[in-house]
């Protein structure tokens, strides 16, 4: 642990401010709570929101896992994990089951989460209506009045153009039947995992200075039309490494002649399902 920093980098007053905002976020599921986002030692878009939430929650006994697009070994994940082991001296892990706190970018682990775990999402754009309504004052009013017809305009456009709802990530959800919420850019494959999850889900947007939460066992509903219901992605392939057919697969180009393979996006889940691990 580097002694020049306070535990988990942020000073105690800042962590207190963050915790108060988080308490409010948990009390009003899906509501975007403004907070005083700090300058962090990494650029906006690299997870400044998530990293501040993690910093506010970490205790000395926590075990941290960081996921970037499902993988534990990519730049963003490695950097953030090393950052917290340096400034907080906490234990880190790549195993979902061993972690008490999981910071994630763009995925929810395939392994089911438990009540004693917290999932922290990095969010680039917390406002699901933003592409349709650029004015912040107006989107806040729409949230206050639960006036969400506009979101269906986007889904309508999808069907009109592509014959189906083509939105495949950052798929809008309604939290606890009240607040329209962005699930962060997770694939819509992960949306059902939000619904009534035993783990607490927290979302931090550093640049936009907003926090929101989906408390445990909260109803989360993906928007759809009556005659175009919400559908999950599916693959004709199995994972080339572990043979799984129920996880989210990445398509990887492996050489210059266009050979492809499909592998699990969740590296921890994949390594746990390989034949040698099962034996």
């Amino acid at each position: 642990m580097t002694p020049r920093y306070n535990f988990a980098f942020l000073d105690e007053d800042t962590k207190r401010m963050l915790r108060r905002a988080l308490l409010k976020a948990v009390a009003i599921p899906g509501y975007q709570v403004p907070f005083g986002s700090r300058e962090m030692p990494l650029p906006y878009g690299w997870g400044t929101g998530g990293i501040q939430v993690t910093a506010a929650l970490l205790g000395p006994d926590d075990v941290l896992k960081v996921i970037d697009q499902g993988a534990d070994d990519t730049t963003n994940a490695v950097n953030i994990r090393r950052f917290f082991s340096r400034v907080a001296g906490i234990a880190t892990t790549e195993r979902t089951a061993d972690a008490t706190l999981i910071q994630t970018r763009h995925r929810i682990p395939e392994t089911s989460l438990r009540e004693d775990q917290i999932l922290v999402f990095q969010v680039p754009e917390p406002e699901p209506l933003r592409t349709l309504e650029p004015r912040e004052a107006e989107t806040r009013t729409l949230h206050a009045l639960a006036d969400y017809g506009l979101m269906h305009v986007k889904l309508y456009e999808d069907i009109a153009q592509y014959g189906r709802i083509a939105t495949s990530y950052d798929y809008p959800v309604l939290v606890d039947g009240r607040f329209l919420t962005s699930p962060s850019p997770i694939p819509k494959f992960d949306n059902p995992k939000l619904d009534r999850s035993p783990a607490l889900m927290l979302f931090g947007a550093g640049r936009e200075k907003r926090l929101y939460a989906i408390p445990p066992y909260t109803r989360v509903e993906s928007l759809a039309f009556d005659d175009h219901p919400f559908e999950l992605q599916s693959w004709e392939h199995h994972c080339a490494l572990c043979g799984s057919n129920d996880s989210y697969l990445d398509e990887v180009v492996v050489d210059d002649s266009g050979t492809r393979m499909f592998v699990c996006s969740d590296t921890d889940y994949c390594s746990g399902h390989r034949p040698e691990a099962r034996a």
Partner: protein
Amino acid sequence: MSALLQVRDLSLHYGPRVGCEDVSFDLHPGELLCIVGESGSGKSTLLNAVAAQLTPTAGSVRYRQRDGEWLELGALSEADRRRLAREEWGFVTQNPRDGLRLNVSAGANVAERLMALGMRHYSQLRATARHWLERVEIDPTRIDDAPTSFSGGMQQRLQIARTLVTQPRLVFMDEPTAGLDVSVQARILDLLRRLVNELGLAAVMVTHDLAVARLLAARTIVMQGGRVVETGLTDQILDDPQHPYTQLLVSSVLTT
């Protein structure tokens, strides 16, 4: 028959400047009322104050809802005001680009108000949108085209379809035919007259064009400097104007 809208002693001041002053009128179901006057006479101010888009300085506007209950618009909450605007009213702006959502297709523009009312069946939304495009004489095969690819007249007709699709009881129109050439104007006026009759709409329309008033409105209000100078049956006002300003307006049309 009981009125739909009652405006009493309505005034709206912009600081020391007068927007409109002491305006009173009633609007009955199925009636189209025109507000005419020169530029700067307070027509649009009056329209926006009546439609609860601007807050009046003094006076009252009362509206009778579908269920027969009278609402005092000045005392309405933001939520109720939006509900009225969504469920019972429509607003057609002078520039269709202000009233349309330009980054989504024509079909989505027409269907938006239906979705705001909670309609969640794609095929029905689409069928309704197509039907309304036909009703305002837009080729239904252009349902997936962007409104930016439409001509000015088509955009205005699209805005009318988008406004009328929820079958509002009361429509506010702010110079819907200004800025269009004469033949397009004529088609839109013809369309409006037909739709207003078919749907039994009540409407308040602002215009500086007396010919529009003559064609559409049973009653007309003439404004000058924020005040109503003459009000009555349109034909009466245009054929036998009493106030010097109205006489001037009417004569200026005849001489050109």
